[in-house]
């Protein structure tokens, strides 16, 4: 009886450890535990007031959830692109600069410091979506129809994107004084939780619904695993690859909109700098194979939160500026190696062998 329940427990444990989502969640828990031991006040959340007199929530946790929003949104699109095309889009940072620049161009007209908005914010957002999806489509066409390596295809926009972004606004750095525009990256008046968190949650819900009620997830994985056999089964692999890049374009538009809203301005060369690497990292941390195929979006999302958690933890512990990237790299390497499919399989096998020996 006892033996039986033990092996049941072990089976349960094995099942958990084999789950793809296990590693990113474990990483998150370890980071939390580390912070809890080092300084429990890390998790304190307080209700304060902003300088405009509205109630706002403050605390490290809120900061993490708030600032991870863009990365979470990007990691969703990046997971799809990775799965379908077996490669990554390295142009998302430049594309965010582009999308943000479009938003400002529409809202400011040609003025650098307009006293009123030249168009409703929703119009600016929609145009930004269209432009970002067009650029996504451009990448998609190169990858799906011209069969370019995704990294090579997106290298074009990676190189040119920020210059195009600057060109859209005639090299000016517009600043929007209208407070309403800042609501999307900060707080809606009277709501204590930062709006990017809401946007990210909304985005996750929509993604979940799409995954649940359409065949997108199935088709994407089929194409990623074997494009030829999925074609023989009546799926158009080129179109699936193409559409994932367009979806990523939409993700970029939303992320770019939040980014420019945070400070109501833009700096073409540093906005969302290196975010493409973080987005790819989120996908890898989630245990998704970067060569395509099966994927788990929820794992990528947690991977994105892990990255932001790590960043804020390092700030909190006042790691010297010069050493910051090194610390980050060490943690990241450990996590990525642990979450690599090969290593996960090895670990599970080892566990099984161990359990088998134990039973004997």
């Amino acid at each position, binding site marked *: 009886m006892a033996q039986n329940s033990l092996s049941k427990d072990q089976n349960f444990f094995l099942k958990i450890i084999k789950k793809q989502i296990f590693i990113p969640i474990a990483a998150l828990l370890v980071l939390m535990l580390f912070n809890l031991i080092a300084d429990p*006040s890390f998790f304190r959340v307080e209700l*304060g*007031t*902003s*300088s*405009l007199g509205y109630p*706002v929530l*403050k*605390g*490290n946790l809120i*900061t993490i959830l708030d*600032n991870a929003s863009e990365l979470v949104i990007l990691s969703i699109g990046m997971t799809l692109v990775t799965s379908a095309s077996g490669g990554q889009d390295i142009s998302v940072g430049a594309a965010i600069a582009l999308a943000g620049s479009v938003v400002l161009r529409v809202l400011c007209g040609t003025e650098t*410091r307009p006293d009123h908005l030249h168009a409703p914010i929703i119009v600016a957002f929609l145009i930004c979506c269209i432009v970002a999806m067009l650029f996504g489509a451009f990448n998609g066409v190169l990858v799906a129809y*011209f069969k370019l390596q995704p990294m090579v295809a997106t290298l074009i926009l990676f190189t040119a994107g*920020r*210059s195009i*972004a*600057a060109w859209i606004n005639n*090299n000016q*750095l517009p*600043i929007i004084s209208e407070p309403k525009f800042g609501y999307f990256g*900060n*707080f809606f008046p009277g709501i204590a939780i930062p709006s990017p968190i809401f946007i990210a949650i909304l985005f996750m819900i929509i993604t979940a619904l799409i995954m649940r009620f359409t065949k997108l997830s199935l088709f994407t994985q089929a194409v990623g695993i074997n494009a030829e056999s999925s074609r023989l089964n009546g799926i158009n692999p080129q179109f699936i690859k193409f559409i994932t890049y367009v979806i990523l374009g939409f993700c970029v538009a939303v992320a770019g909109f939040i*980014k420019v809203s*945070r*400070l109501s*301005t833009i*700096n*073409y*060369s*540093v*906005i969302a*700098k290196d975010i493409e690497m973080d987005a790819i990292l989120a996908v890898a941390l989630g245990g998704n194979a970067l060569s395509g195929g099966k994927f788990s979006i929820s794992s990528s999302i947690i991977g994105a939160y892990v990255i932001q958690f790590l*960043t*804020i933890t390092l*700030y*909190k512990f*006042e790691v*010297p*500026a*010069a050493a*910051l990237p090194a610390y980050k790299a060490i943690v990241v390497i450990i996590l990525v190696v642990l979450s690599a499919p090969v290593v996960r399989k090895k670990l599970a096998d080892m566990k099984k062998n161990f359990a088998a020996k134990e039973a004997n």
Partner: protein
Amino acid sequence: MKIKKTLAILFSLTLGLAAFTGCGPANPGSGAGSEGQDKPAENSASDGNTNADSTSSGSLIKVGIINNDPNESGYRNANDKDMKAMFTEENGYEAQFAYSLKNEEQIAAAQKYIQDEVDYLLISAAGTSGWDSVLKDAQTQGIKVILFDRTIDADESLYEASIVSDMAKEGETAVNWLASQKLDEYNIVHIQGVVGSSAQIGRTGALDKKAQAEANWNIVTQQTAEWSAETAQQIVQSVIDAGTKFNVIYAENDDMAKGAVAALDKANIKHGVGQDVIVMGFDCNMWALEELLKKNWNYDGQCNPFQASYIDEIIKGLENGKAPASKVVIMEEKGFDAETITQADVDQYGI
């Protein structure tokens, strides 16, 4: 399949063509010079040594300008505009521009300009090393080199002059201003630029030195935001979340100061003249000076991007056979106090 193949060929052809035509506008001066104005260009090169009277005789001074990407920052943008406004045909120059943030590309552009036989090579180097051989080439060709904005690790004999900002002095001016505020205690949140850049080294150095020397100066946080406003916002937010007390924000550029202020606003911490937290920035962006005017910030240090007039003066001198008095020309730079700044200052010095 066949259609696709032809399409692919067509597409690659157009791409190839686009690449060629793309090269055209990048160096309009050289394109025109090598075809239409071939002869006058060669003339000016052959009497390059007796160029002194070439300005008076109406021919243009050929300058090749190698700069960093103007999108890099407001500073670079202002700098590029200043150069473009100065080196025009009306002012007696035939200018070619090359932009890159990469040293190798800049060196390649310099080699091209040497082949084009420009009279002057104006360089704002992306990196400090690797310039020796190309500068020697320039010297043997009789091309004079003037560095602006950034120095390089090369022998002084290889260039005529170097017009730079003294970043350490900018830092000192700012720190002296801060000391003159006579606070009982200085608890400073220090937000750095990209570690290793000359602006970061100069501006950090002055503050570090002062903080070590004075007992009541504490740097409570020192972190790099890599010139990014959003990162600065996150850093200051995490400082506030940790409950650390501070009364000075020393940000090494305006963008990062702006990000820091956004975090202060969220936490309802008062900043500016006569308030709880002193905000300091650098670079004198127009919008930053306006924040000073509104007394939301306290101090902004100038980093002078207007080098063109200095260069013009030196070239005019060299044309008349007069070498500049010293090789290193340090530009005058100011620091603005929110209590004394005027609208005129904003208009004149804002970039």
